[in-house]
């Protein structure tokens, strides 16, 4: 299910590139972005509103660092869910408050049987495991197998880089 790809012009691209490091921490941040790309603050705001509407910008705000906030157990829970039920069940799992991301991804039989990924955060592994049990309950008999893959170490985290 590929999302619709939208045309994005050089001006939008420049605005996105200018906010890669984050929104300027000044009283008029959109004016500050405008100064950098040769637009007025009002023009920057109008374009960002449009990009929010079209979904190019998912949202504007704070991205918490789970590890630093005491949610140090991060379990990527993976599930082998019946294909015909994954869309309905995935929506239920994705709506759980302790699930930060939930995706349908392809299996690669025989070494990778799992087709649903749900990222679960907890203060410790016991908490992650009890969350995983709640997911298992929702999936019920539609699930054939599962695993919890804990993170051990961040090897790289640079985020997305957009060039102009």
């Amino acid at each position, binding site marked *: 299910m590929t*999302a619709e790809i939208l045309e994005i012009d050089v001006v939008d691209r420049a605005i996105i590139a200018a906010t890669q490091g*984050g929104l300027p921490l000044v009283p008029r941040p959109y004016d500050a972005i405008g100064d950098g790309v040769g637009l007025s603050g009002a023009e920057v705001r109008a374009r960002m509103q449009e990009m929010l509407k079209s979904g190019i*910008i998912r949202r*504007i705000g704070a991205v918490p*660092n789970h590890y630093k906030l005491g949610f140090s157990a991060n379990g990527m829970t993976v599930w082998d869910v019946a294909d015909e039920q994954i869309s309905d069940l995935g*929506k239920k799992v994705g709506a759980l408050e302790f699930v930060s991301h939930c995706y349908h991804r392809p299996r690669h039989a025989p070494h990778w049987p799992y087709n649903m990924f749900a990222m679960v955060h907890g203060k410790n592994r016991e908490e992650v495991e009890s969350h995983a049990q709640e997911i298992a309950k929702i999936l019920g008999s539609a699930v054939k197998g599962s695993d919890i893959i*804990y993170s051990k170490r961040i*090897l*790289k985290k640079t985020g997305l880089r*957009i060039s102009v």
Partner: protein
Amino acid sequence: MNLNNPQALDQHDKDIINALQGGFPVCERPYLEAAKKLGLSEDDLIKRIEALLNSGALSRFGPLINAERMGGGLTLAALAVNEDDFDRVAELVNAHPQVAHNYEREHEYNMWFVIATETPEQVEQIIKKIELETGLQVLNVPKLEEFFIGLRFDL
């Protein structure tokens, strides 16, 4: 502020983190508008966000971009790496600027990374390169459907 101690955040900090995970205003003085709702001054909100970023409690403050909507390519990939060879392979994988995140995980597939490229075709090229460089087969699991990307991370 003690970075590893969540208790070091006061109630205002927690309110900021809980309330501002999305929906930050797009207006002339957005910090002022957001600050009013949180019972803070504009200046205090800006300083607190800055401190939360510096301490690492927030990894980012700003717009989150949907790269695929811009025509880019994105996938999650994994490698099953021999422990003795792990650091060398991590270095090879991380050397690609298109590798945005990379995590060591406890599983036979012990290296999981996100590849983000300017065009969808480049994803396959990067995977081929990584396979050639490391001599390992990449598990490529691009998303087929997204159920939800949570906003409600509550402290």
